[in-house]
């Protein structure tokens, strides 16, 4: 299995001289399974544009494009690249788009496809030449075209329904865990607070701990985990609680507990320059902090072979 990171930035694309090394494109990861001629793409952030260009050059000559995109959620940084993914304009392309939706009144097709309406874009979804099938996902095992690859989805704590994926092929396991904040007890735990309720506070604590434990189990013994680590713990505690993202320290600690071999810290904050990410690498990516788990800040263009 070959994994290539086409976009690793969170929130919004941020090209410029300060983001040359780690990249400015928003999330898009490609998984290639050459023996079974299958490709899985996770998220359609701005990074998918370059992936699409690459496919036009290298794949199209072998026959029509037939691929699958798994969306982690429908926030714009994870779907904005789709209108710039050239294969969708080709007759013969077959594309399956899997993803979660929060409310049954909005279909995945509408949420994603409405980016291609005249208010936002010159081409409408209905005018695309390719065949696109939308499949709405729930937590649990995902049914795809064959059983060679096992994909399991897990509910994450984000401000919209968001799924992590565990992808297993032969004896290798890759997990994605973004965008994701640790589950928190959001109920008041201060007995002096007029709205304090002990039962609510205790139940909240128990639920948050249980959900975080389930996430740890989801990552169990994976060969590679690609995980949201948008802030430092200091930034998180100061002003980012409830924003739906994790701190680097929490991501390392809880992934380590799950016995994971390699951790890619992902979804970098747009304010993080290459220099800042280099500094964070020095601070966190060492055996004192990460133990035996190889840990690095994801870079656009990076390839990992498992």
């Amino acid at each position: 299995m070959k994994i290539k990171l086409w976009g690793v930035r969170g929130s919004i694309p941020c090209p410029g001289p300060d983001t040359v090394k780690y990249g400015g494109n928003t999330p898009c990861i490609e998984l290639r399974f050459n023996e079974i001629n299958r490709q899985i793409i996770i998220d359609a952030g701005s990074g998918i544009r370059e992936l699409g260009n690459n496919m036009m050059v290298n794949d199209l000559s072998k026959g029509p494009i037939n691929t699958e995109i798994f969306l982690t959620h429908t926030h714009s940084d994870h779907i904005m690249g789709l209108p710039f993914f050239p294969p969708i304009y080709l007759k013969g392309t077959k594309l399956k788009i899997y993803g979660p939706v929060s409310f049954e009144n909005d279909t995945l097709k509408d949420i994603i496809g409405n980016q291609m309406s005249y208010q936002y874009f010159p081409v409408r979804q209905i005018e695309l030449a390719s065949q696109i099938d939308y499949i709405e996902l729930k937590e649990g095992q995902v049914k795809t075209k064959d059983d060679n690859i096992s994909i399991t989805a897990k509910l994450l704590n984000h401000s919209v329904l968001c799924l992590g994926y565990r992808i297993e092929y032969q004896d290798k396991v890759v997990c994605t865990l973004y965008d994701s904040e640790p589950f928190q007890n959001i109920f008041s735990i201060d007995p002096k607070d007029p709205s304090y309720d002990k039962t609510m506070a205790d139940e909240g604590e128990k639920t948050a701990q249980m959900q975080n434990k389930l996430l740890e189990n989801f990552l169990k013994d994976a060969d590679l985990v690609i995980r949201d680590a948008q802030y430092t713990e200091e930034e998180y505690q100061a002003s980012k609680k409830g924003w739906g993202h994790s701190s680097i320290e929490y991501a390392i600690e809880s992934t380590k507990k799950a016995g994971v071999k390699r951790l890619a810290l992902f979804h970098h904050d747009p304010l993080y320059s290459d220099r800042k990410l280099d500094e964070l690498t020095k601070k966190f990516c060492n055996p004192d902090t990460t133990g035996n788990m190889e840990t690095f800040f994801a870079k656009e263009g990076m390839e990992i072979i498992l």
Partner: protein
Amino acid sequence: MVNPQKQNEEYLHTIQEYLIKMPSLSTTMTKVLAVCNNPNTSANDLNKVVSMDPVLAGKVLKLINSAYYCLRNQVNSLTQAIIMLGLNTIKNLALSTAVLGSISKKTALQNNAMDIFWTHCIETGVWAKALALETGITKSECEEYFVAGLLHDIGKIPLIHCFSADYMKIVAMAAEKKHSVHTIEKAVFGLDHEEIGNLIAQKWKLDGAIAQTICTHHHLSQTDDETHGFVERLAVSNILSKGTINDLEEEGIEDNFVKNILQNSLIKTFLEKHNLALSTLKTIQESTHTEIENAKLFMQISKG
């Protein structure tokens, strides 16, 4: 001449149409909007407001247990659901549910009936939680009893909303003739609030004890073995709750609280089974009264 079967089909059709976009209660809507439109709303306030609206509470449980979340065990705690779904999702759901209600104009009769209904639901929930605590249920499990009380009469909402004038006549007739409301509902509409509750429970994918309560709180013998003890506590709470939908009269009980309790075989058996003293019920009744007053106060704050 009206064909009764055709008439019943029309009632069913009207109810099913209403269920497609079932709004928050008029009683709670203003507070729901106020809490959810406030960017600084605390999780505690959000939980409180959801806990006081049967439709909203049902929809939150539906969302957490629906096909989107493949959970091994049914989640019946709103506290758990709020942590798992997150504040934003709950706020969005609450706002969309409340807005559905603000679109349609309601008559004074509908509003009044809804206020009475709401009080009865909260009261039953408070009774159920208290009885559960008194009869060996752990504190963490008690919330499910409250939620079941809140939702037990959910099947009445479409009837009150769609046929308010007829429905109030049914309630008055039940009180006058000492018949149960659900029997007259069945005779008039072809289906009673337990059966309509069943339609809602299916639509919301509610399962287990809460669904059993909604569907069998007047027919305990039809409850499955697994949830019998749970539904029994709810059936007792339903009678003890003094809602003006005339549940006391419905069960053939008159005004005096203590005298009434002893006359009701279901309550009598329950007291004996759990070795509960009448004085305990009296104490619960007093605390229930305080909780209802607090709930009303919480709702009125937003109306000022």
